[in-house]
Structure formats: C-alpha cells, structure tokens
C-alpha cells in the first residue's frame, strides 16, 4: 500500500508538470489555433535563462528566476507571437505547425551551441526530505510540485472566470468575431494567452529541471508528453489538459513498476490511440462541429 501511495504521488507530481505544459497547448489552440510543437523546448529554455543569470551575472537563484520569467514572457510570449505566429497564421495551421517544429530545432541546437551538450545541475525548490503519510514516506519535493501545480491551475481558472480580462479572453477563445463586435480587444487578449503560456512554461521549468537536470534535449520528451496529455484530456478544454497530464503521469509510473520500464512510453501511447478511437474529443473535451 505504501508503494502504491508513493507511486501515485510521484506520478501526480510528474503529471502536474506535464499538465502545465499541456495547458499551454490548449490555451494557444483555443485563442489562435496555434499548435506549438516547440512547447517542450519552451519548458527547456527558461531553465537555461536561470542558469545564465546565476553563472554569468552572479544573480541569486530567486532573482535569476524573476529575470528568467521576464525574459521568457518577452521571448517565448511576445516575440513568439509577433515574429512567428502572426506572420504564419494567415497561411493556415499546417505551415505554422511546421514553423514551430523548425523553431523547436533552432532552440534545441541554439542551446547546445551556446551552453554545450552536457547536463547541468539545477537548484531544487525545496530540500529533499520526506513526509510520512499513512505509512508511506512521501517526497516533500513531490508534494510541493503537486501543490504548486494545483495552485497555478486554480489561480489561472480564477483569473479566467473571475476577472473581466479573463472573461474577455474566454470570449475571444469561443468566438473571436463576435468578441470583436462586442468591443473586446481580441488581439490584446490573444497576446495575453501567449504571455500566460510563457509564465506556465517557466513554472514547469522550475519544477521539472531539478529532476531532469538542465539539458538541451529535455524538450523532446516533455513536448511529446504534454501533447499526448492535451489530446487525452481534450485539446479544447483547459481542465481536460490538466486531467490528461495527471492521468499520463500516473499511468507512466504505474507502467514502469507493474508492467515494464521498457513499455512505459508504449502504454500511454496505446491509451492515446484508444482515446482517439472511442472519444476523439478527449476525456473532457467538447465536440466541435464544422459546416462543410
């Protein structure tokens, strides 16, 4: 039983990080029909912003995190939208998807050229101690990751449903044409989603990098898992992405222990195929109909 609880918490903690990246997928899709295949690299890059702040500019960890957050929002939010998404969006979804794949390669190779192919240690947010719950020794770091993830998602949900700007963003996501008629500054709302995505990937980077270590190739797996999580949960629902991420993290861990380490990626993919076959809109997604 103790093993089961430990696995569950560890799975939920990892799944929470996938969920943060997956939420970014759904946000960008809902507001601007952008499928960002560089999302994994978006999680990888802020960790290097932090390391650069600490090693090149001698900043303390917290200040480097603040600087990295600002830099992430400028580069991965504002500049990503203005320099890549806006010019490409007029050409349709597919060219934009290809452009984001290119961006992912550029980011990965850029980090490798600048910072090297080695992995680098990254400071954890909390000391590695344990808390005993129901006889199971749970990692405090896992609990903190889970807590921060839940906190971030709740805060985002409150922002979207409880503030005027949040409701305007939701209206933009539902129907930009009607939102524009109603006087909602649609362009600004879309920009806000890109900035929120940048903040989310920065948070995910802070949580995952102490475990993965900072490495140029970290985005490959993260991007894949986040994409699978978003599809499993429902690409057009934020809460779907959260559920998808958590489910994926738990399945991954249980597969590794109770089936085989070699099949840990296979089982989530089989689950993905089952979802696509029997519930293509995802676990919590809504059916989108199109007139042809």
């Amino acid at each position, binding site marked *: 039983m103790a*093993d089961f609880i*430990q*696995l569950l918490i*560890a*799975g939920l*903690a*990892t799944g929470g990080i996938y969920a943060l990246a997956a939420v970014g997928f759904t946000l960008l899709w809902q507001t601007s029909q952008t499928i960002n295949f560089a999302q994994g690299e978006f999680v990888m890059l802020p960790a290097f912003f932090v390391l650069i702040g600490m090693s090149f500019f001698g900043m303390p960890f917290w200040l480097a995190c603040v600087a990295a957050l600002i830099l992430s929002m400028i580069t991965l939010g504002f500049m990503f939208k203005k320099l890549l998404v806006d010019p490409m969006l007029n050409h349709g979804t597919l060219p934009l998807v290809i452009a984001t794949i290119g961006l992912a390669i550029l980011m990965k190779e850029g980090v*490798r050229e600048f910072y*090297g*192919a*080695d*992995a*680098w*240690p990254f400071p954890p947010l909390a000391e*590695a*101690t*344990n808390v005993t719950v129901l006889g199971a*020794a749970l*990692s405090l*770091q*896992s609990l903190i990751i889970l807590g921060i993830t839940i906190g971030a998602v709740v805060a985002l949900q409150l922002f979207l449903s409880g503030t005027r700007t949040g409701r305007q963003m939701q209206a933009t996501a539902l129907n930009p044409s009607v939102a524009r008629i109603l006087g909602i500054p649609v362009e600004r709302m879309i920009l806000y989603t890109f900035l929120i995505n940048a903040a989310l990937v920065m948070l995910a980077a802070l949580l995952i990098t*102490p*475990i*993965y*270590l900072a*490495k140029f*190739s*970290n985005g490959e*797996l993260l991007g894949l898992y986040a994409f699978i999580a978003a599809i499993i949960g429902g690409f057009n629902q934020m809460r779907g992405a959260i559920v998808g991420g958590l489910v994926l993290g738990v399945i*991954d*861990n*249980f597969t*590794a*222990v109770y089936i085989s*380490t*070699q099949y*840990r990626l296979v089982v989530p993919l089989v689950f993905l195929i089952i979802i696509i076959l029997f519930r293509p809109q995802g676990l919590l997604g809504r059916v989108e109909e199109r007139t042809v």
Partner: protein
Amino acid sequence: MKLLKSIASLSALALMAATPAVAQVKLAYIGEISGQLAVSGGNFRDGVVLAVEEINAKGGIAGQRINLTLYDTQTNPGVARAQTQKALDDNPYAVLGPVLSGNVKVTMPLFIQAEMPHFIGGEAADLVTLGDKYLFRTSFGQQIGMPKIANYIRDEIKAKSIALIWVNNDFGKTGRDNLLKELASRNIRLAADVSTEAGQVDFAADIVKLKAANADAVFVYSNEEECARIMREAKRQGLKGPFVGDTTLLSQKTIELAADAAEGVQGHVGLTSDAPLKEVEEYKARFQKRFNYVSDHNGIKGYTGVYAIKYVTEKKLGGKFDRKALAEAMRGLTITPKDEPGILIETTWDQNGEIDRISFLAEVVGGKQKITKILPKIGK
C-alpha cells in the same frame, strides 16, 4: 585591376610553394560529442585535444605535428558508422574512440577492414572477444572490474543482498551479466533487478522498486547523467543506500550533477583524476586550466590513448608511421610513466587489446571523490 589581383594571387601561391611544408600526421577522434553520451564523449575528446596540444607544442610525434580531426557520432550508431567511414576515407594514422560500447561494436567491421588501430573508451566486456586485432582499450573491460567490485561488496560493505539498477544498453547489459555472475559466486542475493533506459530522465518509479527490495546495498550501473538523476531521485524519496557502483557512479561529472545526493557513494574506480599519483594530479591541473572543469576518467582515457600512440611510434617503431606495426607493437606492451609521462599510470595491453592497471576503491566525501585504497594490477 584584374591583372593586379592575378599577380597578387600568383605571388601568394608561389610564396606558399616556397615555404617548406610542415610534416603532419593525421589522427581522428570519432566520439559522442553530442547526444545522450555527450558527457563521456566530450570528456574523452578534451583529453585527446589536451594531449595533442601538448605533443604539438613539443614538436609532434617523431617530428610530425598532429593534425586532429573530430567526428561526432551524436551517440547514434547509424551516424557513428557513417562518421567512421568518413574518418577512414581521410586515411588517419590511428583513431581515438568511440566511447559508447554500442558504437564501438557497430564500427568495428570498418576498422578491421581498414586495418586501423583504434583506442576505444568502451568498457563492455565482450568488445575484446570479437576478433578485432586493431582494438585497444583505454580502461578496464567489465570482466576485469566486476570481480573487484564483487569482492568490495562482500568484504567492505558486507552486503548479503543487492538491489541492482542498470542501464539497458551494451555497456549496462554486459556489466549486469558480469556482476550477477560474480555476486552469485560469492553468495550475494539479488533482491531487485531494475533495468532503465539510456537517456531516461524520470526515475521515480524505479526508486520505488529499489525501496521495496529492502536490500543491504544498492548497486547503480549507468552512464554519468543517469547515475546523477538516479542519486537525486533516491535522495528525493529518502532511499538510504548504501550506494555502490563503478567508475561512472563515482566520476567527477556524476558528483557535480548529483551534488549532495552523491555524498557517501562508494565503490571501485578503474581510472580517476583524483588518483593520488603525481602524474595524474599534474594532468588534472593542466586539464582544468585548459578547459575550466575537472576531467573525469574519460578525459584520462583520451589523453593516455594519444600518448600511447606517440610512445609506440617513437620508441618501438623508430618514428615510422606504420599502422599495422603500431597494432602489432601494442599487443603485450607495458608503458610506465617513467617511459612516457603522458601515460600517467603504468599500463599493460594483452594480446586482445585488454588493459591492466592499478585501480582504486573510493568514496564520495564532501562533494569530492576520496581514494581509500589502491588495488594492484591483476598481473602482479
């Protein structure tokens, strides 16, 4: 204007032709500069580069400057084969690398066909049994190291059961098989056998399995980055150990990446820049000054490989650059630091290219590898 340019170009060409050409000998490094094993391949490369720079500064090998070309396998067997073919087409005198045992295996037929001496970093036990007369190790094969580790587990740790976590590639699989054989012969029980993937980043589930095994000691056998991630996750989940391992677990890079999670790790190291030997200490300082980081065992492998080529060419072949003669002279050869300071530690190669050296028992104390005992060469 065109005429002036033509005259200038012809003059430059004439000047170049009149300058006596400096004789050069080509060496190639084919290694894991990027990809999953970049930590090891990068260290090996820097060891090679340091040795080449030092030798060139002193006039080269037998008066010929070394022209070193680097080829990146990207830790990918397909790329490794293509890069090896490219390197061989350039007709080097000898090759350093690859480091990854799997890449050594896939490129082996090309080296045999080209009759090219190659100084590898791979440690998989079977590499010297595959009929490659031109292969020479730069560190122990697992069949040499594992009996020493098994003795250490029985005599020093006094463990009756072991939980083993290993990486499922050529290096990890043959290492595991050799270790299990040695443990069984010493009546040490295998409490858990956890295989992991190369490049794996999340070890939460694997550590839960190790905890459940409740063994007397945990044996970690993987590449440096994965070793560090395993140790970090073990600390995160409160797995107490004791943790035992081989060279990769106690390497400087693993200690740097794992930080305080590596504290107390102990085991056997075949090669280390923390060895309490004057030549190694001086090498470590030179490496750190040149590359601004501490060399691990892979750096020493690359460095000593180049110096072995230099020694044999100058002292055994009389300055003649003959590949087949180089390979022939290497077999059964012993080089001491007195003969060639760049070899750092007295080293013997047998007829199959296997190596024999002293080795070390070590422990991580205060974020550093501390040598606790020096084990003699097997042949002594």
